């Protein structure tokens, strides 16, 4: 790094790396009024009592600052992986017998659904992929991304940039408004054109939710459907991750077709666990899980595709009944036939 903390003033440092300001603030280092000084000069003039009060350790702070700048900068460098491939090597069923496939590969543009009874291990498979399991999860599977095992730092990094994940839970807990939340999340993902993207997410989320919410609504006050809509729009638009993992989206109480249209993009690999026949048949292939292991991989047949169209008709009908009831209408036979 061509950054000499002995020469650069705190003010210039903040101009160069705006995120440094958060670091000072979160470390409780009161740099205000000392912007023209270097960090070393700051520590030589600052009152010792202030240092002690705020539990600051000069050496730790300075070396931390350097690490933080490196860390944040590393997020900017986007791995421009044009290819994306997932390879899974077999692990073991819950009873300890080995899975029967040799290896599984998923490529860019594929949508794969995951089916199986509750408790069979669908979420586990998604988690194995999210973690890039290396024979160190309960299933002992090995997962390669682009043909290689991920480095420990790539796996442990909480903001895994390769994988975007929509899990089964739908609550928000942070004390933030919708706009504050989107702003922080966009910051953490280091996106360019932050404001444009935030606006887009906000509009999409409202479309998905059906019931409108404002930018100032605290995220904890959103309804289940609104929360889920916000999460989906956020995942779809903000994340550039090439792998998308979706866990049982059908329970979200929102239009799942619209949600999937938003999430499923051509250049990604999408894996979704589901109990919903429509979603299960929407994939190119489906993985059948039983007793913790991958039992089968089935290509959707032609016949199934035509059944899917019928199911979609049925679903439309169900939705229209639902909406009619919602808006106080009375259902009648003639209309529907």
């Amino acid at each position: 790094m061509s950054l000499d903390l002995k020469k650069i003033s705190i003010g210039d440092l903040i101009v160069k790396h705006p995120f440094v300001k958060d670091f000072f603030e979160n470390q409780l280092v009161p740099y205000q009024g000392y912007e023209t000084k270097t960090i070393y000069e700051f520590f030589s003039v600052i009152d010792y009592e202030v240092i002690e009060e705020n539990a600051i350790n000069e050496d730790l702070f300075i070396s931390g600052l350097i690490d933080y700048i490196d860390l944040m900068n590393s997020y900017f460098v986007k791995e421009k992986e044009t290819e994306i491939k997932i390879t899974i090597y077999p692990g073991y069923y819950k009873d300890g017998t080995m899975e029967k496939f040799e290896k599984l590969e998923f490529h860019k543009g594929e949508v794969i659904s995951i089916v199986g009874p509750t408790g069979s291990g669908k979420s586990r498979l998604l988690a194995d992929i999210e973690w890039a399991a290396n024979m160190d999860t309960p299933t002992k599977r090995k997962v390669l991304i682009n043909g290689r095992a991920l480095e420990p730092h790539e796996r442990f990094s909480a903001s895994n940039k390769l994988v975007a994940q929509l899990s089964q839970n739908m609550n928000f807990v942070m004390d933030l408004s919708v706009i504050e939340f989107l702003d922080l999340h966009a910051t953490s993902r280091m996106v360019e054109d932050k404001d444009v993207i935030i606006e887009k997410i906000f509009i999409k989320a409202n479309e998905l939710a059906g019931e409108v919410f404002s930018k100032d609504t605290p995220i904890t006050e959103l309804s289940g459907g609104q929360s889920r809509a916000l999460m989906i729009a956020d995942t779809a638009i903000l994340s550039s991750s090439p792998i998308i993992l979706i866990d049982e989206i059908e329970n979200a109480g929102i239009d799942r077709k619209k949600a999937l249209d938003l999430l499923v993009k051509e250049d990604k690999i999408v894996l979704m666990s589901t109990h919903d026949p429509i979603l299960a048949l929407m994939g190119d292939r489906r993985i059948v899980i039983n007793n913790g292991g991958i039992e089968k991989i089935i290509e959707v047949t032609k016949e199934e595709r035509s059944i899917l169209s019928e199911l979609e008709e049925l679903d439309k009908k169900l939705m229209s009944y639902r909406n009619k009831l919602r808006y106080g209408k009375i259902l009648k036979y003639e209309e529907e036939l």
Partner: protein
Amino acid sequence: MDMITFSGPPSSGKTSIIMKTIESFIRREIKVGVVKFDCLFTDDDLFYQKLNIPVRKGLSGSLCPDHYFVSNIEEVLDWGKEQNLDILITESAGLCNRCSPYINDVKAVCVIDNLSGINTPKKIGPMLKSADIVVVTKGDIVSQAEREVFTMKIESVNPKATILHVNGLNGQGAYELSTIVYDDKHHIDSLEGKKLRYPMPAAVCSYCLGETRIGKKHQMGNIRKIDLGEKL
């Protein structure tokens, strides 16, 4: 014997995480023992006993639990050696956030949960700032987006630490944690001469010594007054 200190705010999930981590140590036939430090009360020892491992607890009572920790840690280390442990784990009370019972050269893990509020990382101070590994729990309750925002806050307080998301209920991530906290070549044989990573706050005042009466004339020792601004 290696030693690991776990610290973190109350109910952040320390015991749950330690239990899951120990389960994966036991599977690898590594011998583990735990000592829980707390202030007034803890049931944690009963949880650990379920794993059939050596357990002790220390209640500091009227003393600051982290001061109590440092003054007893050598004895605790000796106990661990007597038990022939491969790893000795300590769980702190983590009450006041200002203290951190971390010792140089002894692996320090801070456990913090996703539900604790966006400003908590900033508030916790040395306990988070000087940890080697930060374990974030209760991620099952929030979305990936919130996990990422929370993680960013932690990074800005401790950019050096390895941050790991571990689920205290189903143990997801505990195996990974067990592989990075234990190093069979790292041994702590004695704490003699080792230092705390951060000085604990000095607070010897009359109230530390049992004074209960309120009023200026009963206040002695290290006293600091609140600044409420100018008188009107």
